[in-house]
């Protein structure tokens, strides 16, 4: 299901969407499938399925640890696609969050096609900006896949315009200058950034990086179209002694966040 459909729903409900991130293959190949289902069941509107990568430049230690565990468990692109399918089969939207090299190496066309076949909506590409993405843009456009590019507080107006113009599905606003990781207060860089992005596009704007609880989610939901939560979900799993309690932790967190986006 494409992202556009998610935002139709959430806009209709007058609330922000909740997007949860978890690497494929985390905590292990099978558990990963249960985990994303639990997140959807507890209120995530969409799942960012992470493709675990050896050199995750923009990830904080928590996401790194989760992705490393997935790599150690032998996670491959196949498993990513299977996780996408698991999400899609629930009716929720699945996007893949991936560094660029695995896609390039796998073959951009091949990757795009398999993603589409698995029911995925598109890609979030944290180290690929539109100006260096002609292959991906072509492959995505040929399949109506979502191209979720990032904007940052340091982006110029020009670059924001260029980025939102190249995006499809939604635009990902990185709320703090920094890497992924939970923070106790949300950044005041987020709201102005969302406003700058809105000035250039009608696409929904999601805000990520740093959200760990319902109150923060509510705050962000006050000005953004989607609240994206990653490290907090990974942490919930890392802190759990076994899969059942991990799944409970994910549900509890997702419920709190889902309530938050509805308060916002």
């Amino acid at each position, binding site marked *: 299901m494409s992202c556009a459909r998610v935002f139709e729903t959430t806009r209709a409900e007058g609330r922000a969407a909740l997007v949860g991130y978890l690497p494929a293959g985390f905590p292990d190949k099978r558990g990963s499938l249960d985990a994303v289902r639990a997140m959807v069941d507890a209120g995530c509107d969409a799942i960012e399925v992470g493709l675990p990568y050896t050199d995750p430049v*923009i990830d904080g230690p928590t996401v790194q640890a989760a992705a490393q565990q997935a790599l150690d468990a032998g996670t491959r692109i196949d498993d990513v696609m299977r996780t996408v399918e698991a999400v899609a089969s629930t009716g929720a939207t699945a996007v893949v969050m991936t560094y660029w*090299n*695995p896609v390039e190496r796998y073959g951009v066309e091949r990757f795009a096609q398999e993603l589409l076949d698995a029911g995925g909506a598109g890609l979030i590409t944290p180290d690929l900006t539109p100006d260096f993405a002609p292959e991906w843009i072509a492959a995505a456009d040929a399949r109506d896949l979502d191209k979720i590019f990032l904007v940052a507080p*340091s982006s110029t107006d020009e670059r924001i315009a260029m980025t939102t113009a190249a995006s499809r599905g939604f635009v990902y606003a990185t709320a703090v*200058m920094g890497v992924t990781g939970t923070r106790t207060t949300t950044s005041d860089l987020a709201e102005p950034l969302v406003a700058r992005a809105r000035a250039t596009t009608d696409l929904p704007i999601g805000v990520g990086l740093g959200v760990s609880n319902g109150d923060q989610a509510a705050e962000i939901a006050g000005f953004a179209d989607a609240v994206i939560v990653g490290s907090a979900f990974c942490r919930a799993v890392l802190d759990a002694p076994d899969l059942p309690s991990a799944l409970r932790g994910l549900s509890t967190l997702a419920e709190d966040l889902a309530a938050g986006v509805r308060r916002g």
Partner: protein
Amino acid sequence: MTTLDPAPGASRFDADEHGWFGEPGLFGGRFIPEALVSALEELTDAWHEAMADPAFIADFEQVQREYAGLPSPLFHARRLSDRVGCRVLLKREDLNHTGAHKIRNVIGQALLTRRMGKQRVIAETGAGQHGVATATAAAYFGLDCTVYMGAVDTRRQALNVARMQLLGAKVVPVDSGSATLKDAINEAMRDWVASVDHTAYLFGTAAGPHPFPSLVRDFVRGTGDEARAQCLEQYGVLPDAIAACVGGGSNAIGLFTAFLDDAEVEIYGFEAAGDGVDTPRHAATIHSGASGVLHGARTYVLQDDEGQTIESHSISAGLDYPGVGPQHAQLAHSGRATYLPVTDAEAMEAFALLARTEGIIPAIESSHAVAGGLRVAERIATEKGPEATVLINLSGRGDKDMGTAIEYFGLGEAETAGEPA
């Protein structure tokens, strides 16, 4: 002789404005988080302006001369020459302050940092050489300095950790991934994403996203500019071949740049072949890697069939890197330069040979260039006779490598003096 080229971008070997070498999309570019784009653009602008500013060039040259001890001499290694049958010249970057070519790069980038009004620098380091160089430049210019270093490396290179600390730098061990150089780069990038408004990232080699490959090249190209002029002045000829080791590729591009347009000069880069390119333990990125994106640029990368980076292995920490600067990828692709593997064993043999025959203990990195360069020299001597000239970049000194050498050769126990007969 250390004159910077005031008009970068003039040669057909240069990158285009997007950082592409060869042709758009081929090698280079800028594959980075959007959060860093403005910093890299700011850096690109500052670099272009600086290179066009005679005052900056004058500052750069004065610091290189009075502080770093440049130009480094071009040395005729007579006993090695006798051995191979033609003239072997060594570009003595081992004599530079902090013991390697790396000081050229950090002085340039630190001057640029000051010009941009930033007060803090960060860097990644593997064995610690670029970290020490960065800490040195930071001390010299009075900048705050943080160096990221894989936790495996901080343990095996405690001496360099101490050196950086003495120089006033904060050394942060990186535990993620393989806890070595590539992870230190990742961590430094993460710092930079969060600190980019007041921090400069002093990248340690001619790799990474645009403009680093070109910017670093401009600061290290003095090696080749000097060597070319020295060779002409001292011997009245251009070398028949030049050789350098290739890790990320800074010392090699530093040497090569001046000679790229000299079509008659053969150019060789030597990669670390570790246990051999037919084993899984090597770092011969161009020889055995595939095109991909690592650390911000499209280049050759040691990677598996799904694009996961494969850990590299080399006895020399400075060559132990699964990527390579994109300009080298392009030079290999176009055939202008030839890249060949040199194993640990070959490098260590050259290490010992140079010590014994010329009284120079080279860095193990540089020993790869010596090993490969002598191979080339032997062939050229046969083809062209004793008047032929091969110029090898001795990118650094081996003091840092004595621990490895002691283990490798079983040294350090003095002989016991007996009663005189």
